[in-house]
């Protein structure tokens, strides 16, 4: 993965595959503490303790199309390369939270990349799920909640309508956050 926004896209795809209807993505950069934290919280089907113990192993996956599962292992590696770590909290039936912590100014810390592009791809691919994004990066705050969009636009407008996606893309471009 070239940047952190691609890792986020990958991990959130896990969430939607696990049946999540709501995924909350938080990014917080604390320049004083020199810490960058990414947390992804979903209400998917979660993992039992046995799976949770094994899930960082790249040769463990629930999918059947191939026998390796690299997503979490790659994110853990990206975090550990900066002296940070990856925490996974999960319970069966309740959901999973993945928290990656990075040393913000570490030379091996991957750039954030294009969050707007990640969110657009997620919303286009999973129009029935809701996504909440809260980011605090470079002293700039950014927030997007598809539940608000849905409430305002009404039930007849799907989230993958081209006009909605175009708007979301534009929102992030305008902020220079991409």
């Amino acid at each position, binding site marked *: *993965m070239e940047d952190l926004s*691609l890792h986020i*896209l*990958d991990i959130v*795809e896990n969430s939607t*595959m696990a049946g999540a209807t709501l995924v909350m993505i938080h990014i917080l950069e604390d320049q004083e503490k020199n810490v960058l934290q990414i947390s992804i919280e979903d209400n998917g089907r979660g993992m039992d303790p046995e799976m949770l113990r094994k899930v960082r192993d790249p040769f463990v996956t629930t*999918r059947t*199309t*191939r026998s390796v*599962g*690299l*997503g979490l292992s*790659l994110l853990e590696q990206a975090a550990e390369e900066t002296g940070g770590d990856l925490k996974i909290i999960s319970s069966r039936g309740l959901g999973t939270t993945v928290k990656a912590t990075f040393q913000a100014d570490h030379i091996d810390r991957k750039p954030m990349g*294009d969050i707007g*592009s*990640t969110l*657009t*791809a997620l919303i*286009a*691919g*999973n*129009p029935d799920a809701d996504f909440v994004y809260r980011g605090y990066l470079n002293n*700039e*705050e*950014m*927030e*997007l*909640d598809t539940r*608000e*969009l849905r409430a*305002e*636009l009404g039930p*007849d*407008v*799907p989230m*993958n*309508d*081209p*006009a*909605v*996606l*175009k*708007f979301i*893309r534009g*929102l*992030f471009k*305008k*902020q220079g*956050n991409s």
Partner: protein
Amino acid sequence: MGKLKVEDLKRIKESLKGTVNLREGQHRVKITVHMGTCGIAAGARKIMDALFTRLEDSGANDIILTTSGCAGLCNHEPMLTVEVKDSAPIKYINLDEEKVLKIFDEHIMNNNPVVDYALSLGSETTY
């Protein structure tokens, strides 16, 4: 700051007027970009971005763009599947932005599949 504002939402509502809603089954073409870990690492999001931009420029409102997971052909990523209504779906492999734009112009807009980039034509198995 970067938050949805009421006037933003009004603007979307305005731009939706008169457009056809792309509900499942109402579209002419469905494009699926494969977004497993393998696809993402190989550049699937760039493919998606290129398609979004082309789609916006074309003004077409009968095309749906969506994603799926790993198809088990990780060495051929980035991949996408084009389903034109009443035609067999076609899987394209080893894509880059240039190839995707050609597929958009020829297959998606003019229903003329780009055979050179397709996974296979008429074979029994895909791998």
